């Protein structure tokens, strides 16, 4: 069998199709949010949140929750709102607080899983939640529906509030001064990011989630010079990398999350070099 026959063979299976749909939707959401996330200097928040999501996953595993999204999503949303609303007036500086939170959540999660779980393969479970796994291929119909609904919701919110997201990212003070509730939009961004992170965790695992969010945005920003083009390009890159990474991992049995992120990194390298040559020529 050559590669294409093999691919056609795998693509017949509904679980592979589902995985691709969920993967594409997740990657799309992650890339859309990635642009404001990077520009608002929230990257570290995204990273911290994904570790919190790992803690949530551990709790879900211990209490034997069948669908851990119901626990992880509210948890990350609450932490995201908390992190942002403390704002700049907090005495413990933002990045230190987040570092504390993220390593704390990691330790807590690992401790829980090791101590209380009944599973026989703890190392495997931990590895899966940190780096993602083939779990994307074992999604139930319920999973897929929930994932798709959340993803469509995220995209709808993004489109409806697109102009506000731009404004609050570019200059929150101006927005506030002209009578708009910039704080509310910042919280909205944080909530949506938390939702995206809990979705993306299934695809690439909690340690790699922020890569999925940050890399496409950074790549797009090397070349594109308006917000809209950067957002569109970021989305396109992310979808391409997700599909490419998933197909590669299906064909050659490589780990899904890492393969997608490696593809994202390769594209970033390409755009980095491309951006430099363009800049040199002008």
């Amino acid at each position, binding site marked *: 069998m050559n590669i294409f026959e093999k691919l056609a063979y795998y693509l017949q299976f509904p679980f592979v199709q589902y995985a691709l749909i969920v993967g594409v939707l997740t990657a799309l959401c992650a890339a859309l949010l990635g642009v404001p996330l990077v520009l608002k200097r929230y990257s570290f928040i995204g990273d911290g949140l994904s570790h919190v999501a790992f803690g949530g996953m551990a709790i879900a595993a211990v209490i034997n929750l069948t669908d851990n999204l119901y626990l992880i999503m509210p948890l990350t949303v609450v932490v995201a709102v908390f992190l942002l609303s403390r704002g700049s007036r907090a005495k413990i500086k933002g990045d230190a607080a987040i570092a504390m939170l993220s390593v704390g959540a990691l330790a807590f999660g690992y401790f829980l899983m090791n101590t209380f779980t009944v599973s026989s393969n703890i190392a495997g479970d931990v590895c899966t939640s940190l780096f993602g796994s083939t779990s994307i291929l074992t999604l139930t119909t319920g999973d897929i529906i929930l994932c798709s609904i959340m993803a469509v919701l995220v995209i709808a919110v993004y489109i409806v509030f697109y*102009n506000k997201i731009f404004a609050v990212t*570019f200059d929150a003070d*101006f927005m506030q*001064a*002209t*009578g*708009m509730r910039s704080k509310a939009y910042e919280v909205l961004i944080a909530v949506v990011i938390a939702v995206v992170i809990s979705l993306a965790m299934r695809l690439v695992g909690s340690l790699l989630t922020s890569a999925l969010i940050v890399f496409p945005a950074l790549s797009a*920003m090397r070349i594109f010079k308006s917000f809209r083009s950067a957002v569109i390009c970021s989305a396109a890159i992310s979808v391409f990398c997700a599909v490419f990474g998933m197909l590669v991992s299906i064909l050659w049995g490589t780990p899904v999350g890492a393969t997608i992120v490696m593809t994202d990194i390769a594209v970033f390298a390409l755009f980095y070099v491309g951006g430099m040559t363009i800049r040199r020529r002008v």
Partner: protein
Amino acid sequence: MTQLTVDGVSLGYDGNTIVRDLTFGVNNGDYLCIVGENGTGKSTLLKTLLGLHKQTAGTIGLGGGSKRAGFGYLPQQKDIQKDFPASVNEIVLSGCLSGCGLRPFYTKKEKALAAENLDKLGIAGLADRCYRELSGGQQQRVLLARALCAAKTMIFLDEPVAGLDPQATKEMYDTIFALNHDGGMTVVMVSHDISAAVEYASHILHIGKTSCFFGSSAEYARDFVRREGAL
């Protein structure tokens, strides 16, 4: 009609007071210039009037049906990141946002307003350029165009002519004056250009290190400037 009343307001950061007990009012159609040396608290006052900074004492009242949604603002410090991908058009349009409410997209009218303000400031040719690749003076004009898009009742300008060439400075003063005189827009402007302030403004607020002055620009020219020999 009074649009803005400032009553016994003190300003400061982290417990240090920089301006004490300021009282003045801004009426519909006024042109108020705020002058004073570097670091006396002019920008801080503007931010406080706009609700970006909290006063340490006193009250600030919005009156006469003015809402923040009709305010335009040109900040002095632009802590906008170097690598932000944003076109001039996107930025200027974002000035129209306060009139949008929950509507997700800009109307034709808002796009026309943005184009008109780009034209007014002589940067129509830059509409599709990337903001971060413009010169300082060009960036200043872009943010001014954004402020003009947002301003319906009042416009707050923090050193609008800083970084502009003499020709552009003259045009800027004329634009602001026309906005105030013909458009009935209330203007609150921070400036170091005292002669222009006396010439164009209706009122002047001088924030000094020790004392403050508030009155009409004619009074200011007569009493204060002569005493200080600043003109």
